[in-house]
């Protein structure tokens, strides 16, 4: 295990990039997801159709292929990304579809009576959305969103395929230099597990804060 301890800085650097990628992709993905979910309720049929198509295509194709499309395929059309940029873009687009579905599920779970009450009080649509619908949706979906974030942290490991120096890649580079395969891979696995456990606990804590009084 000495090799691991001697190179903690390397692992830390990789982990930092992993978390940065996951955070960016999650924030971006949330925005995309929200817009997509709202688009599904738009009056214009082509807008709705576009949103549905986007979600279905992303959810039925592998993330690695999506990454290849962004990093290797788009340059054919003149759009070039760095490996890191491509990873974040691909993961953002990927996330957006899943977040859209999570939001859609949350919206459907709101009892119709809430909308009736808001309407009966004369609340305009926008106010009802902001004050009644979205806060309740958020409280319903935050566990699923937390899980989605953790999945994104794990998914960021595909960055190794295009050379992004996130956690998996730095570990593999170290392994190819030192040949301490078992120690490094075990450490890599345990680091991911520790991170996901900690993140899960943190998000549960935040979730309770949000749920206070409500449940």
């Amino acid at each position, binding site marked *: 295990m000495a090799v691991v301890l001697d190179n903690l800085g390397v692992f830390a650097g990789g982990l930092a990039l992993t978390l940065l990628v996951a955070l960016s992709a999650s924030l971006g993905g949330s925005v995309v997801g929200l817009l997509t979910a709202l688009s599904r309720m738009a009056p214009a049929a082509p807008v709705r159709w576009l949103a549905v198509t986007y979600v279905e295509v992303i959810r039925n194709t592998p993330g690695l292929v999506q990454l290849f499309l962004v990093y290797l395929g788009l340059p054919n059309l003149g759009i070039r990304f760095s490996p890191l940029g491509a990873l974040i873009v691909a993961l953002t687009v990927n996330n957006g579809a899943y977040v859209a579905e999570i939001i859609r599920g949350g919206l459907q779970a709101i009892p119709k009576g809430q909308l009736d009450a808001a309407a009966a009080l004369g609340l305009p649509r926008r*106010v009802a959305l902001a004050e009644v619908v979205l806060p*309740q949706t958020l409280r319903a979906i935050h566990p699923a969103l937390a899980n989605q974030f953790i999945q994104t942290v794990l998914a960021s490991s595909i960055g190794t395929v295009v050379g992004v120096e996130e956690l998996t890649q730095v570990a593999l580079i170290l392994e190819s230099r030192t040949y301490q395969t078992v120690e490094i891979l075990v450490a890599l696995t345990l680091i991911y597990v520790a991170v996901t456990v900690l993140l899960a606990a943190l998000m549960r804590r935040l979730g309770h804060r949000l749920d206070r*009084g409500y449940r």
Partner: protein
Amino acid sequence: MNPDAVSGAPAPSDPIVLIQGVTKFFGPLKVLDDVVLSVARGERLVLIGPSGSGKSTLLRCVNGLEEVSLGRVVVDGMVVGDPGTPLAKVRAEVGMVFQHFNLFPHKTVLANLTLAPMRVLGLARSEAEGLARELLERVGLPEKVGEYPARLSGGQQQRVAIARALAMRPKIMLFDEPTSSLDPELVGEVLDVMRQLAEDGMTMLVVTHEMAFAEDVADRVIVMDRGALVEEGPPQRIFTDPRTPRARAFLTRLLARSERHRPGREPA
């Protein structure tokens, strides 16, 4: 003929709600069948009838939660659903209380009460909060101001819901089976609030199965069946001597449980 009726502005003696030949379809199903009804200001109406008779649907047509297929509903001179009249204006005059309360669970009682007055009527926060506290006093729950709905009993939640509707200072209050979801021992506290409201002169349309309440409070009882208005009259007569066969059939079934109101029996 009232000169104001010609110009369209409602006069105080005009009915506050006019239901004119309202028919409604849900797909192929006719849920309201040419209903004609007028409600005077300050009148207390109770709608009864078997499930599926359309009474809740009729109520929901009054504040535009349901659209009519044929005919029209006029509230305080405004035609509900008329393109020229925003529904928000109608809904500001009409308060509604639901069977399942529909309080906003993520907001405190105070926030539930102040939301619409601030956002729709434009009241300042201090004004809205003052109004809210006053109304909570009125329904007997002043101490629950900072509580979340989940911590209140069903009866308390419904009373808060009544206060929330009253906060908009409506001219009419609609009650859609307000006590049907409550445990029996909690029904009384809600009916007491409703009785007080009636005493204070509020125009009320109530869909309910609470016959004692209807007899005490209603000016008129309307019996509906399969979307049609079958019979109407003062509660004392309706409960003891229903004239139409369908009303008689429904009331016999319903009141068979309560000795006080068996048709044919002298009123207590």
